[in-house]
C-alpha cells in the first residue's frame, strides 16, 4: 500500500524509556511522501512521544529515524537544519507570546532561511490569508481564540515550506466549535498532498483524510492499516476495545 509513496520518514527499531516506563517499543513505521498517517490510541500509548521523536524533540534510546534518507543528527546545527524542513503543530499552539501573529510566521523564515523581509512578510500574509486570518496579522496571540491561534501555528509551520508536518493532538485543547476550523485547514493540506503525521482523537478526520491509520497501545504499534479497514474491521482486541469506547457516543 505504501508503494505508491516513496518513503520520507522512516523509523526502524525505535525504543524509548521514561525511567522504568517503556514508552516506545520496537517501533517500525514508514511514512511516504505525500502520505497522511493518523496515529490514534488511548492516552499513555506513546503516540505523542512517537510524533515528537520524529524531529527529535524527544531523543530516543535506540533505533534509527531517517528523514528523506538521512538519519536524524545529534543536537546541533544539523538537527536545526532538519527541523527547519519538518513543521510541527502542538496541542497548546505554542505561538510566541511576545510577538505579533505576523512576526510569529516570519521569525523562522527570516532567521533560519535568511529570506528578505518583504518576501517573508508577503508569504506570511498569503499563508495567513489561506488559514483565514490575514486580518489578524498585527494582533498578539493572546488576543486570538484557540482555533485562530492553532491556524496561525499551522501557517507558521507552512512558512518554512516543510517536507512534512507533524501534528501533536492539534485539536485537543480546543473548544468543540473551533475544532472544525482547524480540521478544515488540515483537510485542505491533506488534499494538496502534504506529508502529514497526525496524532489525534478526531476519528472523522482519520476516516476522511488519512491514507493510513496507525493504532498504538502500550508503546507498540498494534495496527497499521487503511482507515476504512481499521474502523470497520479492527483485527486486534485492543483496537476493538478502544473503538467501542470512543465511537459509541
Amino acid at each position: 500500500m505504501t508503494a505508491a509513496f516513496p518513503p520520507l520518514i522512516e523509523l526502524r527499531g525505535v525504543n524509548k524509556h521514561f525511567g522504568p516506563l517503556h514508552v516506545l517499543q520496537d517501533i517500525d513505521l514508514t511514512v511516504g511522501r505525500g502520505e497522511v498517517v493518523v496515529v490514534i490510541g488511548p492516552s499513555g500509548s506513546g503516540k505523542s512521544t512517537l510524533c515528537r521523536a520524529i524531529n527529535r524533540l524527544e531523543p530516543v534510546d535506540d533505533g534509527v529515524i531517517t528523514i528523506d534518507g538521512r538519519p536524524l543528527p545529534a543536537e546541533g546545527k544539523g538537527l536545526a537544519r532538519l527541523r527547519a524542513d519538518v513543521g510541527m503543530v502542538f496541542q497548546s499552539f505554542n505561538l510566541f507570546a511576545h510577538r505579533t501573529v505576523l512576526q510569529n510566521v516570519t521569525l523562522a523564515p527570516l532567521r533560519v532561511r535568511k529570506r528578505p523581509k518583504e518576501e517573508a512578510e508577503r508569504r506570511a500574509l498569503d499563508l495567513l490569508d489561506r488559514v483565514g486570518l490575514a486580518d489578524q496579522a498585527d494582533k498578539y496571540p493572546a488576543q486570538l481564540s484557540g482555533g485562530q491561534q492553532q491556524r496561525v501555528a499551522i501557517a507558521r509551520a507552512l512558512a518554512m515550506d516543510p517536507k512534512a508536518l507533524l501534528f501533536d493532538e492539534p485539536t485537543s485543547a480546543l473548544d468543540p466549535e473551533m475544532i472544525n476550523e482547524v480540521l478544515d485547514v488540515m483537510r485542505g493540506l491533506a488534499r494538496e498532498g502534504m506529508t502529514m503525521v497526525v496524532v489525534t482523537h478526531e476519528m472523522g478526520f482519520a476516516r476522511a483524510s488519512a491514507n493510513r491509520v496507525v493504532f498504538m497501545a502500550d508503546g507498540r504499534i498494534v495496527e497499521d492499516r487503511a482507515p476504512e479497514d481499521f474502523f470497520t474491521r479492527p483485527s486486534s482486541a485492543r483496537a476493538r476495545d478502544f473503538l467501542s469506547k470512543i465511537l459509541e457516543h
Partner: protein
Amino acid sequence: MKVLIDNWSTYWHGFLATLWLTLVSAALALVLGVLVASCRVSPVRPLRVFGTAWVTLLRNTPLTLLFFIVVLGLPRFGITLPFFTFAVLALGCYTSAFVCEVLRSGVNTVPAGQGEAARSLGLSFGQTLGLVVLPQAYRSVVAPLGSVMIALAKNTAIAGSFSVAELLGSYRTINELGYGIVWTFVWIAVGYLVITLAISALFNGLERRVAVSR
C-alpha cells in the same frame, strides 16, 4: 551641611568613583550573567557543569575574600592591573553569579512549549534563547535584577579597602581634617542613597514599560 560644603570636592569625587565602579561592574556582571545563564540552560553538558561551578563558587565566596584573591592572587600569576580593574573584576564576577540565577529563574517561567516551538522551526539554541525565551523571561527578571544591582552598588564600598578611591573611603580624608564622624558618614550614606534610589527608579521605569507592552 558644613561638612558637606567644606568637603564637597572629596565627596563629589568619591561619589563619581562609586558611580563609575557600579556602572562598569554592572555592565560586566550583566554580560557575564547572560553568558553563564546560557551555559546553565544549554543542552551541552560541559557548559552546564561550567555554569553551575561558576555560580556555586562565586555566590558562596565572601566578597571580601574574593577581593583578596583577585588583588593578591592574580599578580602571583603575573597579572598586574590597576586596582580599579581588579575591583571591577571581583565585583563583576561576584554579581554575575546572582544575575545568572535571576535570569535562570526567569527562563524557567517561560513555558517549555515556547522553546520547543522555536527549535521545531529550526532555530538554533542561541536563537531560541535570544529571540524567544529571554525576551519573555525579561518581564519576570526586571524586579529581582534591580535588587541585585542595588546590592552591587553597596558592595562597591568594599573596594575602598583595596586602594580604590570611592565614596566610603572618602571618610578617611574628611576625618583626618577633624570633622565629626557622624555627619561625615551621614553624607556618605546620602550619596549611596542617591545611587540606589536612582537604580530603583530606573528598574521601576523598566517594569512599567514591560507592563505596558504586555
